[in-house]
């Protein structure tokens, strides 16, 4: 079953045509990876899925993007959309507050005030993000004191705390060391039982290791989209082949 359906989508930054005629169906409870060289539009596409592109001045989108059959641009409140479609950013961005308040921020935003309920959500989210054991004794400490890898997993926990259906990961491991990266990849594999994950990655090995489907982008065009195995073992397009064999990018 398809969670996200992108239909004939175009995106412009001013007069720059950043995404050209993208058609893409992303299945539920799978990990979809977007790969391609810098500037190919993969992050831009990702940010269109939770409307973070709305913040960019002069950004124009045409076409249709549907989440579970609902048009996310015309028929859904943007704040509801972002609650359903969580995002983890390239650079970990914990708020300058305690670990606890970071996780509780989302639930509080959506009206949960009861202390016991928040306590439960905080613990559950941190457990889901496999960081509870490391942080349970420092819930009241500032999140800015954590290591980079911990901060990023905290941000994943923060995103999980609002019970999203989809998790967008924008090169979420690119600033991390291999051990932290490994932990997050493991986490993704575990999370896909409950969530649909869409990730942008620079790292082809990562796409190969954890994603079910892979879309390859080049100069704003989606060149190829198939199961990850197919894309990497028998790419149909010559440009895909050149990219995955490391001839450019």
């Amino acid at each position, binding site marked *: 079953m398809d969670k996200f359906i992108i239909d004939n989508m175009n995106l412009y930054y001013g*007069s720059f*045509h950043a995404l050209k005629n993208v058609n893409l169906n992303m299945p539920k409870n799978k990990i979809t990876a977007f790969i391609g060289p810098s500037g190919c539009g993969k992050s831009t596409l990702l940010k*269109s899925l939770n409307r973070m592109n709305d913040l960019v001045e002069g950004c*124009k989108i045409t*076409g249709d993007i549907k989440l579970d059959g609902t048009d996310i*641009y015309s028929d859904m*409140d*943007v*704040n509801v959309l972002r609650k359903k479609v969580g995002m983890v950013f390239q650079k970990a961005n914990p708020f300058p507050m305690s670990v606890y308040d970071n996780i509780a921020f989302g639930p509080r935003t959506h009206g949960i005030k009861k202390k016991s309920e928040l306590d439960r959500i905080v613990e559950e989210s941190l457990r889901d993000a496999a960081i509870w054991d490391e942080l349970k004794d420092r819930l009241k400490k500032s999140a800015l004191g954590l290591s980079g890898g911990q901060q990023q997993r905290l941000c994943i926990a923060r995103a999980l705390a609002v019970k999203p259906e989809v998790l967008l990961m924008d090169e979420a491991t690119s600033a991390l060391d291999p051990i932290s990266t490994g932990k997050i990849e493991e986490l993704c594999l575990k999370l896909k039982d409950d969530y649909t994950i869409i990730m942008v990655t620079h790292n082809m090995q990562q796409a190969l290791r954890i994603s079910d489907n892979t879309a390859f982008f080049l100069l704003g065009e989606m060149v190829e989209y198939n199961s990850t195995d197919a894309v990497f073992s028998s790419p149909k397009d010559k440009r895909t082949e050149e990219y995955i064999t490391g001839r450019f990018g």
Partner: protein
Amino acid sequence: MADKNNAALIDDIKPINKVTFKQRMLSYKRKPLSFVMLLLVALAALISAAALVFIIVYVLVRGIPNLTPELFALTYNSDNVSCMPSIINTVVLTLLTLVIAVPFGIGAAIYLAEYAKKGNKLVKLIRTMAETLAGIPSIVYGLFGMLFFVYALGWGYSLLAGAFTLAIMVLPTIMRTTEEALLTVPDSYREGSFGLGAGKLRTIIRIILPSAMPGILAGIILSVGRIVGETAALIYTYGSATGYATGFLNSGRSLAVHMYVLTNEGLHTDQAWGTAVVLLVLVFAINTLSAFIAKKLGTKKG
């Protein structure tokens, strides 16, 4: 050509990501508190702007009809309460204050920006002291000026005492703006000049100061605005004699002090409104000039 057509096409696109007013209102309906916050910030901005507009319009409406020729008569008497002598006195006072303060302000800024080593204890002290000076209220400057220049040095209420007092007062402004201007000069200019074998001093005078000039000028003009608007620091240093201060040791009143005396006496309210207009227009013209020059610097940099 193709690009132009392309751009025109893009302008015609009806994007799906445009948030309509209706969508926004529906969103606020779900979160009424957010709507309240939006209204609050807009209201606050409105109040701030309204305060300014109200003051200015009120002063202009009451003051402009009182801008009579007598108000600008060459000699002051207690009937015409002409502000002409005080305008001239203000100009002279401003010039003398700048003559004293600018060399110190620029010199200090050059030392801080070009010579001083970072983290030096003394440099830190200099900065702290400049900040302290910036925080001292005018009336305390006035008290000090009176104690030191008027009495200890025996200058009496005089142009010199007023100018020295104000010079200390505007020193931190000139120092800070000049230093900021010097720091915006790219290091490549310095390296280029050193590369040609120029010495440090020559580089500063020939290369760095000229490129930082708009910023320095903006700071100086800002100080002029402060001098022109100043009252409390002048009453007991420059005094409030009504004529032209023709010598360094003569007392005179600046325009702002003149306005204070008029207000305090309460006998010439109409003329006080007129004087308020003159003062406002002067100060605004000066501030606008400063902002304009600073902006020119900004665009040049960008």
